[in-house]
């Protein structure tokens, strides 16, 4: 599904990704861990098409296409979903209107008929159950005045609405208490399936207690320096990132 090959990227002239290699097959859940500043969020942003990141080399193949050629909106329409680390507030735009535009843009691209008000509302009500969001939030402006937990749940809710193939979660666990974390994780788990893959970027192992990954990769200084199964995450938790840093320096 996703094949990243020697991907290099920089922001404002500073090289951050120094050659990333990663393959994600349909249905797999990959966790990307690493210390602060290692390039985890940059990787998520580059995949989603954030414009301030410059791709300096390498390639990203997504379902047989060159992902880097797609605009951010076409990536979303092709099935890539980024759950933001810091979802932005948009005063004056209601969550419902925003989602309706998003769903119908995506459907149109995929050759599906647009949803009318009734069908849209039905979909909304069905998906909102996944993340236990209060329906009142839908009439409020996007993320405005939402608590940290509500913002992250709203991200997972949007994920459910847009029916993506590849979900990238950028530090979705940051700023969540344990209850909110469980709700978010349950939402994600209910979206898992044989055709849908996940790349979960996280600093801590905590989220992986609830969303069990198939593979764990450690990103350090712009490269994946270690890959393994979920046991690697536990080992990291125990030994800390200094363990990786130390190994890296020895090598």
């Amino acid at each position: 599904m996703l094949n990243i090959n020697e991907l290099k990227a920089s922001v404002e002239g500073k090289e951050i990704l120094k050659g990333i290699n990663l393959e994600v097959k349909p249905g797999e859940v990959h966790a990307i861990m690493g210390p602060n500043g290692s390039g985890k969020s940059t990787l998520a942003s580059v995949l989603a098409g954030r414009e301030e990141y410059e791709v300096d080399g390498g390639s990203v193949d997504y379902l047989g296409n060159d992902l880097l050629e797609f605009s951010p909106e076409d990536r979303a329409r092709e099935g890539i979903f980024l759950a933001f680390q810091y979802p932005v507030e948009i005063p004056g735009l209601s969550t419902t209107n925003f989602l309706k535009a998003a769903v119908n843009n995506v459907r149109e691209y995929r050759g599906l008929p647009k949803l009318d008000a009734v069908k849209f509302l039905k979909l909304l009500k069905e998906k909102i159950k996944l993340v236990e969001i209060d329906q009142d939030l839908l009439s409020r402006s996007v993320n405005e005045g939402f608590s940290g937990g509500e913002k992250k749940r709203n991200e997972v809710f949007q994920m459910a609405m847009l029916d993506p193939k590849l979900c990238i979660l950028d530090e979705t666990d940051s700023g969540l208490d344990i209850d909110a974390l469980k709700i978010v994780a349950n939402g994600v788990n209910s979206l898992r399936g044989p055709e849908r893959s996940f790349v979960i970027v996280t600093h801590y192992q905590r989220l992986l207690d609830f969303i069990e990954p198939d593979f764990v990769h450690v990103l350090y200084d712009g490269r994946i320096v270690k890959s393994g199964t979920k046991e690697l995450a536990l080992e990291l938790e125990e030994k800390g990132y200094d363990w990786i840093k130390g190994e890296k320096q020895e090598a």
Partner: protein
Amino acid sequence: MGKIESIISGINENSAVSESLSRAKSIGLPSKRVEDWKFFAVDRYIQEVEKGDKPACGHSKIDFEESESEISLELPYNLEEEKEFQSPDGLNISIQVTNDSRHALNSLQTEEFFPVLNHAFGHYEVLIRVEKNREIEKPLRISWRGVSGNLGHMAIAKARVICEDNSSLKIIESHNRSANDNLIVNALFKADLSPGAKLEINQLQAFEKKDLFVGYHHITQKKDSTFTSNLFSLSGGKVRNNHQISLEESGAESFLNGLFTPGVGEIIDNHTIVDHIVPRCTSDENYKGIISDKGIGVFNGKIFVRQDAQKTLAFQSNKNILLGKNPTIHTKPQLEIWADDVKCTHGATTGKLDPEQLFYLKSRGIDENEAERMLTRGFANEILNKVSLQGFRKEVEIHLDRILERSDD
């Protein structure tokens, strides 16, 4: 002075105008050298208007109607006959001769060129009186359509509202032009709010590209009265809006909300003055500009808090977003305070659409143009949300959406 002659060229001689006219002449056309007019080149705009066709002269119909949802008065600029209308209980609406005595002229209390000229040529005015303790539920719509009389390009609109004690009225005022001729619209709207009165004025301005509009709203407020202005200045050639509010007795409240959206070849210039003369009055002003392409927006807001006006609450904000190529905004929020026990804030911000917000929408599959439009609408919604009349809000939204779609191209 030559410009004044040209404004009045083609006007029938009428001795009654002479005094106001000579005063207008002595004041002279506002020049760009004057601080308050430095972005609005009246001279040049008048010349441009005069290159175009003159409006067809003659009588235009006056229509008055009460429907389920509103009371509607459609009338032409340059009124030239007296009339009484059969309005609902508690509301008196008529068209009356403007008293052109020296007293009436002095009562204008203005040294501004356009209101004085309005007085010179506005022989008739719409007079609205809301009787004591009457709350008029249906909004009153005043639409200026067509032109009567023979004033060349000049189109005079003149209205006066008297709100007696504890009365309440909502007005929809629209200048909605669709003719091919070009006008210099000179509008003067006065309102006096007695103790406890409530008045709301909702304005929709949609002029033609070549029109010049200069409008004045002079409002005086007595004890515990509430005035609200929702101004939507959406399109037009050269538009100058002046609001002047005098808070003359304690407990008066004034809310000024504005949205202006100049595009290519348009300038929308907003000047407001809120004068806190006495203690314990409140004013809250919110103007937002969406300026696209070569459009020019101006916001100049003055708040005066006089020495006696202790316990004043005065707030003022102007926020602008700039879209497309070469938009311009001149903003000048001003606060002059002579009292020492007051709470006042003012500020202005100007920027482009937030790239983070834009990316967020695009990352959900939303087309770039649509995303920009949604964010711009979101920006405008803060002002739209101030409107209590839902029908009016719809009208404004239809207009606004048309304008925002246009600026995509």
